[in-house]
């Protein structure tokens, strides 16, 4: 099934690229999304079944695949608005959609692959297509961001590959003949702890560029400052989820070994350092996209805290990851509307947004409530569970330090949002007609997070429980 999906996606992408026609784009991209929805449904009905030899529909893949499908659909809608507002020519539009399809396909492959080396290859493919999308506006800044992202990501992922090769040593020693996650996890008890530690560290360091976490976060932040906002919405959510997925799967491999306690400390440290860096960087942020990019860093830091404390923290970490995806995507989708209205990218030129466009202002306010994890946001539930796990796990100092820096981040977030919503406008204003569902979709995404946080359906909780069962 997956092989068919990949062939289909590549064919659609090539057709869009060659045809350079708006009609072809309008027909083929929705067709691609439809096939993605069908794949998500298929994966749910074929849970834990191996597909196309190298792939497996496990619970985490199904969950993140579903998130990616929903966000792909929304991204298509917002991409149409973005391209219309920019007045992009049909050739450039076709290139954009062709690259977007390949980018999404590479993420689908990453979500479902059951082989660590193929996961590496899929993630490297996401880097290539992401860099093409970052460069879409063809400006000097876009060129710089695309180069830095592609180069540092490639070097980082190359370092991660060394970690995978270390895993292959372990696999060979244990008599394994392939690098599937299931095989590695089953043989992990007999693995050499030194190899495991080196391997985990290299994988974490290399893929930190994808998760926007310490140490290789900088280029990801720069890329998100420049990329088109619908692409940003995917890069800050679905792509970050892919990065989480590889760390999570490596974590499952070592969960049954003596190295587990050490790995928990490493994740805790990575999470806290990322929180500290995000809060320091937010003191001098001047662009809205950059504000959101550092917010992603903060939330992934919180996810890592949950992952490191164990118990209910595992459940909360996955929950937080999914909620963050919907909320952050909603925020990024609105950026284009704000930039067009104020004809600027700088926060100090924004102001009075609530008065100028009350419905859009309301959507933004709801976004603020959601992203800062205020009740009734689902993120409040997941963050509460993570800190509960930390306090119950006697991690008082870590919890205290984290809460301090999260409060600082909260302050900078609210300060900037209040400036945009209520302060007198400093720049030029260009009114434009709102697209009919532009803010409705955002409000729906935020409402989805509230619904999933307050009364999560059984399908949802069962899948998350199946995900964390690998660690418990």
């Amino acid at each position, binding site marked *: 099934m997956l092989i068919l999906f990949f062939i289909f996606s590549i064919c659609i992408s090539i057709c869009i690229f060659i045809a350079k026609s708006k009609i072809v784009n309008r027909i083929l991209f929705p067709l691609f999304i439809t096939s993605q929805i069908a794949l998500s449904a298929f994966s749910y009905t074929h849970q834990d079944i191996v597909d196309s*030899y*190298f792939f497996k529909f496990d619970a985490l893949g199904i969950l993140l695949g579903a998130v990616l499908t929903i966000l792909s659909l929304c991204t298509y809608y917002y991409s149409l608005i973005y391209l219309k507002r920019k007045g992009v020519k049909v050739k450039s539009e076709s290139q954009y959609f062709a690259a977007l399809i390949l980018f999404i396909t590479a993420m689908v492959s990453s979500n479902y692959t059951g*082989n660590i*080396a*193929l996961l*590496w*290859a*899929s993630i*490297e*493919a996401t*880097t*290539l297509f992401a*860099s*093409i999308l970052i*460069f879409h506006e063809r400006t*000097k*800044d876009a*060129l*710089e*961001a*695309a*180069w*830095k992202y*592609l*180069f540092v990501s*490639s*070097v980082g992922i*190359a*370092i991660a*590959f*060394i970690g995978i*090769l*270390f895993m*292959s*040593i372990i*696999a*060979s*020693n244990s008599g*394994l*003949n*392939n*690098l599937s996650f299931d095989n590695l996890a089953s043989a992990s008890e007999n693995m*050499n702890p*030194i*190899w495991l530690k080196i391997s985990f560290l290299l994988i974490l360091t290399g893929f930190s560029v994808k998760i926007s976490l310490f140490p290789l976060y900088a280029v990801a932040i*720069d890329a998100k*400052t*420049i990329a088109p906002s619908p692409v940003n919405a995917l890069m800050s959510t679905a792509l970050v989820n892919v990065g989480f997925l590889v760390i999570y799967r490596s974590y499952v491999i070592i969960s049954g070994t003596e190295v587990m306690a050490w790995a928990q400390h490493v994740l805790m440290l990575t999470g806290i350092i990322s929180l500290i860096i995000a809060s320091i960087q937010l003191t*001098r*942020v*001047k*662009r809205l996209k*950059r504000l959101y990019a550092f917010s992603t860093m903060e939330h992934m830091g919180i996810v890592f805290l949950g992952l490191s404390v164990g118990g209910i923290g595992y459940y909360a970490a996955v929950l937080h990851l999914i909620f963050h995806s919907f909320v952050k995507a909603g925020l990024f989708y609105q950026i284009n509307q704000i930039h067009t209205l104020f004809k600027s990218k700088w926060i100090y030129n924004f102001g009075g947004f609530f008065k100028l466009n009350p419905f859009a202002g309301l959507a933004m306010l709801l976004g603020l409530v959601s992203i800062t994890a205020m009740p009734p946001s689902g993120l409040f539930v997941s963050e509460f569970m993570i800190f509960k796990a930390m306090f119950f796990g006697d991690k008082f100092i870590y919890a205290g330090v984290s809460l301090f820096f999260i409060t600082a981040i909260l302050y900078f977030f609210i300060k900037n949002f209040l400036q945009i919503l209520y302060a007198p406008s400093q720049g030029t204003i260009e009114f434009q007609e709102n697209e009919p569902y532009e803010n409705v979709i955002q409000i729906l995404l935020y409402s989805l997070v509230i619904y999933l946080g307050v009364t999560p359906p059984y399908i949802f909780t069962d899948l998350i429980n199946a995900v964390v069962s690998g660690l418990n």
Partner: protein
Amino acid sequence: MVLLFIIFYAVTLIYFALSERVKKFVVLLSLQGFLLFGVVFFSLYKIEIFDFIFILIETILVKAIVIPWFLNKVRKHNNLKKVHEPSVPVFYSIIVVVTSLIFSFLISNYLKDNQIHTLYFTVAFSSVIFGLYFIIIHKNIFSHLVGYIIIENGIFLFSLAVGSVMPLMVNLAILLDVFMGVLVLGTFVNRIGNTFDSIETDNLTKLKD
């Protein structure tokens, strides 16, 4: 015979440290490709024939011919002749290469594992370290691309050192990614050269707030 190829590979690293001419970088990368071909030819003949042929083609065609040819085109497009910014003197660079070789040798002995071939591991690991060092000391993005390929070559040797168990399909996906990566990076080097009239990294500092 294999040992000779690997020792020659280590020598190419020292030559990288000595060189300042961009053309020499490309020649050395091509030489590394041929040396890796030799290593594969004399050491991997016991594996399955399709895998063996695939890896041979990968080394000779991609690493020794196509990538250096493409880099040469990028070099000519940007009119690159010599790297002018030896921020670290050549003497120190040679010391770094030798130190990385000694360090890698000590690590491979410390890690003692039946699966690891000490000499392969030593040269491969020092190639990765040197690739990173090469990127750090140079201030133009073409040299950064060369450094990235040195790292990739080191990782390829590393995969031979540990006798990895990658199936052919996975190997193909990895090769395609790396190859595409180099092509796209090379294209970006040209774009940056055209847009900024220079490929120095000093031009690429506009993104911070």
